[in-house]
Structure formats: structure tokens, C-alpha cells
């Protein structure tokens, strides 16, 4: 929609005359924001027995003036020491009321340890006010070494703007982890603010963290400094300890290798290693132990190679590629493979399960050209499993591939194996790197291989277990349900693979610092409020991969924009076949993507921006096009009305067809028995052209917003392609959905179909008019 687009085109800079608003003169240098900020600093010191809190408030000149006014009890315009002390006592109590500290959910009572007030000179020698407070709270007695969760929230002066900083400092012997706050300060307790004006002031008002005097649980995030480096040493790693044994004797080495195998197996059993996938795959297919073994081998090799490759990258290319960054990418790839395998298996097996026995007939439409140039949509009413031929065609069956329970294919086994082993275990990587630094490369390699073998063995074991369990289950089940369940089972197991693949991808995106559900939730929440700008601008704040993922999501969503849907509806209303309807959507998406990429390339290569007025005119053009499409759909529907009929006839092959039969204009009704030609309603170029027009109109917004936000031309185009793929897929779905009522009603409910077509035509004309009004013709607004 025009309005939404323009919102992401540009953020109105001076939307409103700033000078109409109350205004303050030039900024004070002393404070990070302005002369009426109240800035706060909190340092949480987590100890074994008590929590200490240092709390500093720094008031800029104006609030300081107000505070000092309030402190001036006798109204003489000066603040005596006793007046200041009295003020401090009041203030300390008041601030304490706004500090919420809970430990394991229970409020932690704090008591004041010390307090101090000063009035350092600020801008123009005017006083500012600085209050320093120290609080302390004794932790409730608990088991030694127990983990505690602390939550801190500061609700003081909520209405004031200012610098808000929270720092966590573990006391000696205490480990802090899973903390939302960082481990180092920026401002030296609000004494020196960063001079970098280009960054936004900190606004940290709450924090959560865990701490313990005992062992840090596995998988915990260490306390980080603001640059993202760990503020404390990471936790220990069992596998890595194997490489660091003081001396490698044959006995020790053997023991270490055995332990590595065991650790590998354990690692395989930790979540996310495709055990389920392997099992589900083998259950659904006619897997044999041979396949399971092959799978294990693939996993071992892939994992070993993966560790080696990543090790090399870490050693030699660490300045170009950050290895930690690769993990989510590899996860995503592996998840993508699983997802793909799952989807294709599911599609195949579902057809198989539904097709041959469950129904006597598998409804199945397709269009083809006969040798005599007689092309049409037709529908087989006979048994599709019967081999047959059309005149001029070759002999074929309509039995879907794999319906007879196709055996395991080596190719998909290989893909599965790769996906299972692709993600190197971080500890294996650590082993390799330690081995190199300890000059025990050979031993390190052996350990890694042993680890991989353990991993693969566990996976193969799981696969075999599934296999035998499946066989045990199949026989009685087959007897009980006449084989029906057995046929559905492969489809279900494929579905499990799909789900696992989706889950791995989801996790990977999460690791990339991008929580798809939450982010999308936020984006859609914003879009619900009418601002895609918020969402698309968030692009800049996520990583590359997440950004591409987001591109796909935006593309999907983009297909559902009103003007797109309306245009495609108008075209789809002329189709009477679901396949064609979805093809319309696909073609639209292809056109849309093509023009986006072309324009994107031009914009990037020539470093030009599309002027707003051009974009506005393009939008107007889209509006006119929608009117045209609506008009065309409407006229076609009206012309056809009297000529719609259904008839049944046979071709030489002996197959009965039911046709819905439309004649253009004055076409005569011919005898169904006679050889005849059907006018083909070709999908043609229309959707492609319409998609290109939409793409062109939308490209201004996208290129400006997206391409300026990505680092390179290639990445920008990649983003656009992903976006385009998303929009193709989205529109494919959308047009199928839209086409559904048309397709369903076209065969038997011609009256309804007619009504639907008329409605679609009228609606799209109406929308086009409204849209044109909004984009171009909106009456000029005269101010006088």
C-alpha cells in the first residue's frame, strides 16, 4: 500500500516544525544528553553471602537546581551543609524505594551502608548534583555453591531522560553467568561520559544474572564485557582435558581414545544431532542395517573433516572469519538440508499414502498439448494406475513416484549423513587447537576421529534401534489396519524430519543472535500498527544470515500486500484450475523479483536513488494497472456468461473428460462428439508483466532502505533475491488460496463462479480507483 510504502521510503526528518516546540539552546558539554537529564549508575556486586549495590545519581544543571530549591528549607537561596544532609537522607530513602532487587524471586532487603552528596560545577559554573549511595543486602541462607538468580530493576525518575548504566561485578570466588548486564563500566561512575556523540546514550534500567560460588552449569553464557569478550574465564571442557594429560603413554592414550569415543556418543545424544532425523528416515523408508552403517560412516567422515576444516580456518583465517560466527551458519545449512529432505520426502510419501489404495482414484489434474494442437485442461476420471496413452502421447502411468514404497536412496542418505556431521562439536575443535599448541597433533587427530566415531556409532545405533522397532511394529500393525497405518507412517516420519529441520534452522537463527519468532512477532506487531519501517529498519541491527532469513520472511509477507493480492486476484479470477492459479502467483513473483533485482543493480551500480516523485508516479501506474486488470476480468466474465457450459466427451484414447467449456464472444457452440478445438486461456505474460510493474514501483522503497543498509552490492542483490524468492513462494501460496474458490466453483458451480469473477473484477476496479486517488489524484490542498 502506498501509505505503508511511503513510510519505509524515508523517515520524515523534520516532520514537524521543531521551532513550534519549546526549545533549549545549545547542548551542555558536561552531560551526555542535555541540561535536564538525571543520570544513574548502578554496580551490582554479587557475593557469596551478600549483594552490594553502588548507586550513583548525577543530576544536570536544571534538575540540580530544582533539587537544591527543594533542599533549601529556610528559603534563603543557599544550601547549608545541614540542609544538604537532610536532603540526602530524604533522597537516599526515596531512591531505595525505587530499586527493586530480588534473589530467586524473593525481594532482597537492602540497607544503606554509606551516602554522600556533592555539587560539582557544571556548564557555566552552575552547580550540578551528585549523590553516591552504597547499599547492602544479606543473602538468605542456602546450600553451599547453590546457583542464584538475581534481578535488579531501577524505577527511580522513570519520567526523566538520562544516561542509565548497569554493571555487574562478581566478588572474589563468585562466578557470574547468564547475565543481561555487562561486566565493565563506561563512564567511571558518571564522572566522564564518552565524547563520541554518534552513539546513543546507554539506557540500561534492569538486569538479570545468575551467580554461584560453586560450579557454573554447562552451556551457561559467561559474563561479558561490552566489547563482547568474556569478562571471566570460560568453564572447563572434559574432552579438551584429554589432550592435556601430562604424559602420553600407550595406556593413557588408549584410555583417552576410549573416553573420546564415549564422549562422542554422549555428544550425539545431546539435543540437536539429527538422531530423530536418522530414525525417522530409516523407519519411513525400507532401510536396512547396511544403510544405517553407511549413514554412520558419512557422519564420521563429515564430522572429522568439519573439525579439521574449522580448525584450519581458526588457525589461518581467523582474522577474516570468526569461527564462532560459522557455527550458526553451519547449523543453518545442516537444518536446511534436513528441512529439504523432509519436505521432499513428505510430499512424496503423502502422495504415496493417499494415492493407490486408500482411494480407488487419485484426483489429478494436468494440462498438456496433444499432437494435433488440441490443448486443454482435463481431468481423469479413470484409474490413474492404469497405463494409458493419449493420441500422440507416450504411455505413462499416473502413479506418483515412490508410492510403492521406494527404497532408501543413497543420495538422500549421504545428504542426511552430512547434515548430521556438519556441525563440528566445539570441544572437538578445542581438542584440535590444543593439540596443535601442545605439539601433539597426531594424538589430537586421533582423539577427534575417535570422538567422531563415537558420535557416528551413537547415531547408527539410534537408527538401527528405530529400524528394528519399526519392523516389529509394522507387522502386527499391518494386520490390524489393513496396511493403512503402514502407509501413513512413512509420511508421518517425513513430517517429523520436516519439524526437526525447522527446529534446527530456528535454533541456528537464534544462535546468530536473531530470534525469529520474537523478532517477527515484534515486526508484525509494529506492522500491525502500520509501520513496516520499524521492522525493515531492524535489518540493520541483525547479522547477515539473520538478515537474509528476515528477507525471506519479508518477501513472504510482501506478497500479501493489498495491491499485490488485488492485482493477482483479478488475474486468477480468470483461471479455473488451481495449478494455473498458483502458476499465476509464481509468475507474478518472478516478474516482481526480476525488476527488483534489475533496479537494485542499477541503483547500486550507479549510486543513484530513485527520486520520490518517480516512485509516486510508479505507484500511480500500478493503480491504473489494477483498474485495467479489474476491467479486463470483468468484461471477460460478462461476455462469457451465456456461453458457459459443461460437457463430457471422449478422445481416441478412450478416456472420458469432463470439460468446463467457455467460448469467447461469438464462438459457436459445437458438437461435443465432433473433433474440435478448445480456446486455451493461456496464462501468458500478464502476471509476469504485472509482477514487474509491482516490482518496479516497490523497488524505490526497497532499494533505498535495504541496499543502503547492507555492506556490499553482492549481499544487497542476494538479499533482494532471497526477498524475491520469499515473494514468489508467498504469492504462489496466496494465488492458490485465492484461486481455490474459483477453481472449486468452476466445474460444478458455474453460477457462483460467475458471481465470484464479477465480484473480483469490481473489487479490483474499486481498489484501483481508490489507490489511484491516494497515490496521484488526491486533490491538491490549497492553504488559502
Amino acid at each position, binding site marked *: 500500500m502506498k501509505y505503508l510504502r511511503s513510510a519505509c521510503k524515508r*523517515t520524515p*526528518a*523534520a516532520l*514537524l*516544525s*521543531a*521551532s*513550534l*516546540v*519549546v*526549545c*533549549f*539552546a*545549545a*547542548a551542555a558539554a558536561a552531560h551526555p*544528553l*542535555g*541540561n*535536564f537529564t538525571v543520570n544513574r549508575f548502578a554496580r551490582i556486586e554479587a557475593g557469596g553471602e551478600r549483594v552490594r549495590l553502588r548507586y550513583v545519581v548525577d543530576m544536570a*544543571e*536544571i534538575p540540580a*537546581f530544582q533539587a537544591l*530549591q527543594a533542599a533549601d528549607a529556610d528559603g534563603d537561596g543557599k544550601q547549608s551543609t545541614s540542609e544538604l544532609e537532610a536532603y540526602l537522607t530524604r533522597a537516599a530513602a526515596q531512591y531505595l524505594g525505587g530499586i527493586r532487587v530480588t534473589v530467586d524471586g524473593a525481594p532482597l532487603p537492602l540497607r544503606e551502608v554509606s551516602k554522600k552528596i556533592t555539587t560539582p560545577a557544571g556548564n*557555566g559554573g552552575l552547580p550540578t548534583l551528585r549523590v553516591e549511595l552504597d547499599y547492602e543486602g544479606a543473602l538468605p541462607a542456602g546450600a553451599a555453591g547453590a546457583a542464584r538468580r538475581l534481578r535488579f530493576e531501577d524505577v527511580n525518575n522513570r519520567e*526523566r531522560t538520562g544516561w542509565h548504566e548497569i554493571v555487574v561485578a562478581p566478588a572474589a570466588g563468585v562466578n557470574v553467568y547468564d547475565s543481561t*548486564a555487562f561486566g565493565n563500566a563506561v563512564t567511571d561512575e558518571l564522572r566522564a561520559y564518552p565524547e563520541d*556523540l*554518534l552513539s*546513543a546514550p546507554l539506557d540500561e534500567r*534492569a538486569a*538479570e544474572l545468575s551467580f554461584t560460588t560453586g560450579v557454573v552449569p554447562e552451556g551457561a553464557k559467561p559474563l561479558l564485557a561490552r566489547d563482547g569478550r568474556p569478562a571471566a574465564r570460560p568453564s572447563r571442557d572434559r574432552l579438551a582435558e584429554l589432550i592435556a594429560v601430562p604424559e602420553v603413554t600407550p595406556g593413557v592414550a588408549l584410555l583417552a581414545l576410549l573416553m573420546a569415543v564415549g564422549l562422542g556418543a554422549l555428544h550425539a545424544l545431546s539435543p*540437536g544431532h539429527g538422531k530423530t532425523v536418522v530414525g525417522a528416515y530409516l523407519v519411513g523408508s525400507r532401510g536396512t542395517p547396511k544403510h544405517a552403517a553407511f549413514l554412520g560412516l558419512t557422519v564420521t567422515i563429515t564430522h572429522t573433516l568439519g573439525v579439521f576444516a574449522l580448525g584450519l580456518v581458526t588457525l589461518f583465517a581467523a582474522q577474516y572469519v570468526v569461527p564462532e560466527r560459522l557455527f550458526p551458519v553451519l547449523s543453518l545449512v545442516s537444518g536446511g538440508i534436513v528441512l529439504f529432505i523432509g519436505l521432499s520426502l513428505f510430499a512424496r510419501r*503423502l502422495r504415496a499414502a493417499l494415492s493407490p489404495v486408500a482411494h480407488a*482414484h*487419485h484426483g489429478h489434474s494436468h494440462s498438456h498439448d496433444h499432437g494435433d494442437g488440441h490443448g486443454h485442461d482435463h481431468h481423469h476420471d479413470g484409474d490413474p494406475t492404469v497405463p494409458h496413452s493419449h493420441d500422440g502421447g507416450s504411455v505413462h502411468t499416473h502413479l506418483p513416484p515412490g508410492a510403492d514404497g521406494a527404497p532408501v536412496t543413497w543420495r538422500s542418505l549421504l545428504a542426511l549423513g552430512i547434515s548430521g556431521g556438519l556441525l563440528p562439536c566445539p570441544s572437538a575443535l578445542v581438542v584440535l587447537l590444543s593439540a596443535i599448541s601442545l605439539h601433539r597433533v597426531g594424538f589430537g587427530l586421533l582423539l577427534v576421529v575417535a570422538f567422531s566415531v563415537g558420535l557416528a556409532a551413537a547415531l547408527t545405533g539410534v537408527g538401527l534401534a528405530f529400524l528394528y522397532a519399526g519392523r516389529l511394529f509394522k507387522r502386527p500393525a499391518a494386520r490390524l489396519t489393513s496396511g493403512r497405518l503402514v502407509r501413513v507412517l512413512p*509420511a508421518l516420519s517425513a*513430517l517429523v524430519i*520436516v519439524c526437526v529441520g525447522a*527446529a534446527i534452522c*530456528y*535454533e541456528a537463527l*537464534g544462535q546468530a543472535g536473531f*530470534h525469529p519468532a*520474537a523478532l517477527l512477532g515484534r515486526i508484525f506487531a*509494529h506492522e500491525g*500498527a*502500520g*509501520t513496516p519501517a520499524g521492522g525493515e529498519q531492524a*535489518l*540493520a*541491527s541483525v547479522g547477515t544470515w539473520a538478515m537474509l532469513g528476515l528477507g525471506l520472511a519479508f518477501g513472504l509477507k510482501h506478497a500479501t500486500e493489498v495491491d499485490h493480492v488485488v492485482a493477482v486476484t483479478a488475474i486468477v479470477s480468470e483461471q479455473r484450475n488451481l495449478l494455473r492459479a498458483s502458476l499465476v502467483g509464481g509468475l507474478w513473483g518472478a516478474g516482481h523479483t526480476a525488476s527488483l533485482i534489475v533496479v537494485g543493480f542499477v541503483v547500486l551500480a550507479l549510486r543513484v536513488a530513485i527520486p*520520490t516523485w518517480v516512485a509516486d508516479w510508479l505507484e500511480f501506474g500500478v493503480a491504473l494497472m489494477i483498474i485495467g486488470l479489474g476491467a479486463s476480468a470483468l468484461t471477460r466474465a460478462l461476455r462469457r456468461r451465456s456461453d458457459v457450459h459443461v460437457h463430457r466427451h471422449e478422445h481416441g484414447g478412450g478416456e472420458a473428460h469432463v470439460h468446463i467449456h467457455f467460448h469467447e464472444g461469438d464462438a459457436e457452440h459445437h458438437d461435443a462428439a465432433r473433433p474440435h478445438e478448445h480456446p486455451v486461456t493461456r496464462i501468458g505474460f500478464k502476471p509476469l508483466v504485472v509482477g514487474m510493474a509491482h516490482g518496479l514501483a516497490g523497488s524505490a522503497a526497497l532499494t533505498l532502505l535495504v541496499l*543502503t*543498509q*547492507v*555492506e556490499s552490492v553482492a549481499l544487497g542483490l542476494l538479499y533482494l533475491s532471497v526477498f524475491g524468492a520469499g515473494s514468489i513462494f508467498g504469492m504462489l501460496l496466496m494465488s492458490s488460496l485465492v484461486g481455490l474458490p474459483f477453481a472449486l466453483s468452476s466445474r460444478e458451480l458455474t453460477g457462483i463462479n460467475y458471481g465470484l469473477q464479477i465480484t473480483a473484477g469490481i473489487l479490483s476496479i474499486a481498489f484501483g480507483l481508490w489507490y489511484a486517488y491516494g497515490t496521484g489524484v488526491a486533490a*491538491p*490542498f490549497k*492553504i*488559502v
Partner: protein
Amino acid sequence: MPKKFLVNIGTIAAALALGFGLYALYTKFTVKPDPLFQAASAPGRPETPADRQIRAAQGVIERLPEAAAGYNLLAIAFMQKARETGDFGVNARAEAAIKRSLELAPGNQEATRLQANLLLTYHRFGEALEVARRAVGQQPRDYEAYGALTDALVELGRYDEARKSVQVMLDLRPYTASYARASYLRSLYGNTEGAIEAMRLAAQSANPGNPENVAWCYVHLGDELLNAGRRDEAEKEYDRALFAFPDYHVALAAKARSRVAAGDLEGAVGFYTRSLERVPSPEVAAEFGNLLTKLGRADEAKRQYDLVEFIEREGAAGADTYSRSLALFWADRGTKLDEALAIARRERAKRADIYTNDVLAWCLFKKGQLEEARAEIEQALRLGTKDPRIHYHAGMIYHALGDRQNAARYLKLALETNAAFDVLQSEVARRTLAAVSA
């Protein structure tokens, strides 16, 4: 046929439902919330549009450190932040961003326009006009540049040119910013109904994703309604503004004014206090001081008056520019008249807008320089603006000049527009009107 089709659809739907169910279970038991993600979103206040814009702009800068575009986005974001918080200190950050953008791409049009906007917030209108003209020259179809140009012209009192400029802006793009400016100009020309209409359009077309802008429009719509004597409707708009952008300091002050107009003085105290807690604005503090005086709370009133002077002094530290509103404040209270007059004259030397004319006339009147005051107030009245304060000042000046007819006319106009335009001065207006009419 449809039956089989429906069976297929049903099967797929069931399969998907099953998948989602399994997946939900999977996430429930395995996916732990990422604390770092929470850190970005959960604690404290929700992010405002300006915060999001700042993050986005910084993301661009991180990826394209040598491109001006990112810094321009950052400047826009900081200026929006300044509007949201009322803290114009943030504009120093916008200035730094614009400076960097201009270093990277000297003379780039967007940064030039942003600089014009920035100069406007610094009240350097002459320079702003020059820069805005340059931005328009570089890109004659950039409607936003016309926005800056219009503002500069309005502030300098060059209304005819401003009117042309805003018309160009409207023709290029009728949207919130152009409607809002059209409304302001209509209001200046005394077309209150037209101003209401335009501001309504502005409010309707405002991006709901930017609640501060929406609320700003509502407040100004309310102000126009108040000027049309439609206090109840005005207050509804203020409430709407506070709903759209809670605790918006501009809306809180407006709400306080409408409470005063409704005679609910105690209620007004609450809203003034809340507004000043968020943003200590000298104008609002002065109004609040007047209200407290009226309520007989002299001590508290004095604190507000002291605050006004302090803010002005603090704001002027380093530069010797006191604002026009301080001159008005002093003139209203009859204190420091010489300094007030000096400020007004200095301001008048820089610009000839009706509000500067008005303040100078009022200072001159207070100093007893009536002939000059008449010349200035006639200038302030030249557009026919229905501003009760200008009308009040005019009435008082004509009264002092012995022109009873004009005195009565303007005092009546002021009180008809808003009988409570100022808690203290409106009483003076009423007394004087009674004396003139008697």
C-alpha cells in the same frame, strides 16, 4: 472432485497441526530464552520509534562506515529522539552526525536539509533559511526541504513567501508535515476553521508507528479548537494525544491549560507538575507559577519563577542569547523591564514575525513608550491572527493610548477566544474591559 480435494487439504492440515504440536513441545523443552536477546528488548522502558531508528542507523554505519546515508539516518533519529524526550541536548548528537555526513559527502543534499532543520532548533533562523534554500536548490522536488524552508520563513516573519513554500510542499506531497504547516499558516492568517481542518488531516495521515508525531498533531489540533472556543473538543484531542503517547510533556501542558480553562485549577496543578517533571520548560514553568500565584501558593510560585530564570540563564550560558519568552515573562511580571526590552529589541532586529512584534510591543508598553508600542502591535496584528494574547496586548496598548473603541474591541476578542488565556492576565483584561465599557 472437491471432496477428494478437501480430503487432501484436510490431511495436510492435520499433518501440519501435528507438526506444529511436536514443534511446540520441542521448543518448550529444549529452547531456553537467550538472555542476551532479552537484554536487548525486555528490561526497562519499551523502545520508542526513535530508539529503533537510532539502532538501525548505527547498524548501517557499522556496515557502511564511509557512506553518508547512515549518518543522515542517525541525525534524523537523534532529532526524533529530541522531540520525543523534549531534550534538545540530543540535537548535539544530530549535529555531530550531520557534520560527519558532510565530511564524507560534501554538500550532500539530505545532510544539507537536515542541517537546516538543526539550525531551526537552535533558533538560528537566518542561517537556516540560507541552508534550506540551498537544499531546495539542489533538489527542487524534495518536499522535506520545503518544510525546513517554510519554517525558516515563518520564524523570520516572511509569511507570503512561507505560504508559497508550503503550497509547493503540499503540491509535491500532501502528508502530515505539509498539512501541519498549512494548518499553522492558516491559523496565523486567522483562518481557525481552516487550520482545524488541515490539522485534522495531518493527524489522520500521521504514521501511527510514530506516536510522538501523532500526539503532536492532536495537541496542535486541540490548540486550534481551543482558539475556536471549543474547549470540550480540544480537551478530547489532548486526551487522545496522551493516549497515543503517554506522558508526552507537550500534551500534559496542553491538558493543564484546558483544565485551567475549564476552571479546574487543582486538576491543572497535577498536569503541570507531570509535564515539568518530564521536561522543565520555561514557558510551562511560568504558566505554572502564575497558576500557583492565583491559588495563593506564593512560595511554590516563586520556585517556578526562579526556575524559569534559571533555565533561561543556564540555556544562555556560553552564548548571550536570552529567548523572547523570557522578555515576555519579565514584562508580564513588571520586573527587569529594561533587560526585557533589550532582549525584545535584539530579537526584533533579527526577525519580524508577529510574535516578536508582539513581545516588543508589550515590553515597550510596559516601559511607557506607547507610540512605538502601537506601531509594533499593529505589525503583530497584520495577519489577523486570532491569538488572545496579542489581542489582549493590543487592547491594553490602545487603552493606554486612549483609544477606547479599539481597546474594547481587542479585549473583547481576547476574552471571547479564550477567557482563560492566562490565569493572571485574563483578569487584568476583564477589569480593563469593564473600565473601558463603563
